[in-house]
């Protein structure tokens, strides 16, 4: 019934948030926290929980105060139409850029793990073609697909975490003292942008129903992501040690590679590639749809489906031109990527939502 009206439920939106979180978190979080917080890195996901909690509360209050408005309308209400449109245009450019970044990461990951002899642009073109076909039927199709993908990814992730337990060494995650508080906080601030993606999803709030339950469900999801992130980091640092985790590009993949249960369950890293691709598909298609949605609002378009194909061509070229090497791509993610996401997903929304709540 929701799909027929082109809307998705809050539950579907939060499921998308969980799936989107998976791909960048398993690539970025273990090595980043291991570099900064070393053996205590697994405690750093507690910090983003407390950074994002006020954002969830403010979002909920803003939606309660402006019941008939979407988040985009709340931006216009807070900043004025012209400034709001200018800011949302920057949002569209930024989200398009990080979508290109994630598209490139998706391609790089496949050609460095499974198809080492194949050109990267083939996989990116396949992804673009799939998104073009599916998005023409509406975003609800992706939300419905994700209702299967999200639990699948979560179940596989926790099963893999259990399988890694025999290689887990408690010495790798100890000792911990009060001297670790500052590095934990630093690492926590660095990874909190991943939690901030909830704000990008709520840029689609005019197609999301049941927003009155956001506080309740949002806090549950934040708690789940904090817990699963802590499990992810503890299991990888506990298996590989923080010094190895900090140095290798895909620590989760390497931790899965050493899984061996009675010589029966082994070489199961291809499962990780599959769930990673599924998560990337949801991430790239969702961010792309958010860009489309923003452009529709900024330019007051009646229909956005006519620009899907041509915008995907632009996304393809952006992902090919974004970098010439993987090292540069990671340098960009670790510096400008973190700062930009912190600005657009945490700092600006915080200010805008406070204005929206206070302003009469």
């Amino acid at each position: 019934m929701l799909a027929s009206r082109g809307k998705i439920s809050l539950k579907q939106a939060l499921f998308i948030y969980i799936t989107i979180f998976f791909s960048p978190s398993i690539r970025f979080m273990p090595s980043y926290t291991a570099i900064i917080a070393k053996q205590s890195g697994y405690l750093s996901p507690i910090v983003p929980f407390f950074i994002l909690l006020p954002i969830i509360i403010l979002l909920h209050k803003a939606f309660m105060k402006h019941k008939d408005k979407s988040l985009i309308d709340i931006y216009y209400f807070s900043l004025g139409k012209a400034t709001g449109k200018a800011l949302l245009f920057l949002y569209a450019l930024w989200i398009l850029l990080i979508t290109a970044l994630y598209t490139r990461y998706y391609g790089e990951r496949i050609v460095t793990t499974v198809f080492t002899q194949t050109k990267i642009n083939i996989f990116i073109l396949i992804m673009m073609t799939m998104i073009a076909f599916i998005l023409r039927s509406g975003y609800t199709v992706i939300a419905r697909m994700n209702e299967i993908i999200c639990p699948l990814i979560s179940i596989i992730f926790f099963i893999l975490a259990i399988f890694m337990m025999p290689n887990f060494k408690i010495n790798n995650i100890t000792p911990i003292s009060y001297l670790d508080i500052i590095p934990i906080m630093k690492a926590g601030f660095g990874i909190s942008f991943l939690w901030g993606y909830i704000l990008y999803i709520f840029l689609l709030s005019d197609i999301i129903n049941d927003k009155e339950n956001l506080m309740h469900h949002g806090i549950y999801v934040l708690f789940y992501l904090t817990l699963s992130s802590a499990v992810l980091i503890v299991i990888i640092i506990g298996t590989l040690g923080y010094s190895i985790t900090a140095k290798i590009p895909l620590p989760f993949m390497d931790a899965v590679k050493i899984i061996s249960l009675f010589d029966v369950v082994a070489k199961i890293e291809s499962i990780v590639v599959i769930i990673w691709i599924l998560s990337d598909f949801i991430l790239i298609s969702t961010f792309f749809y958010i860009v489309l949605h923003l452009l529709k609002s900024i330019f007051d378009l009646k229909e956005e489906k006519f620009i899907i194909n041509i915008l995907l061509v632009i996304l393809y070229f952006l992902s090919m031109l974004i970098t010439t090497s993987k090292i540069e791509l990671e340098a960009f993610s670790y510096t400008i990527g973190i700062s930009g996401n912190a600005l657009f997903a945490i700092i600006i929304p915080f200010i805008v939502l406070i204005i929206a709540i206070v302003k009469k």
Partner: protein
Amino acid sequence: MIPWIIIILLLSSWELYNMRKEDLKKERFILIILSLLSLIMAYLYSNYPYDISIAGFSLDLFGFPH
């Protein structure tokens, strides 16, 4: 370059054809702008595939080492 020009022109023409029955002037304008942008990007990618790096340019701009 030539295959990309053909693909972009075909996609744009098809979308313009789909729009013909509706009053979608702004959409047409945006589509044409995006098509021109994609042609420029196709030119850049075809002629300088290993010279242009948006990430490298941004890192230099903000003074981050890489």
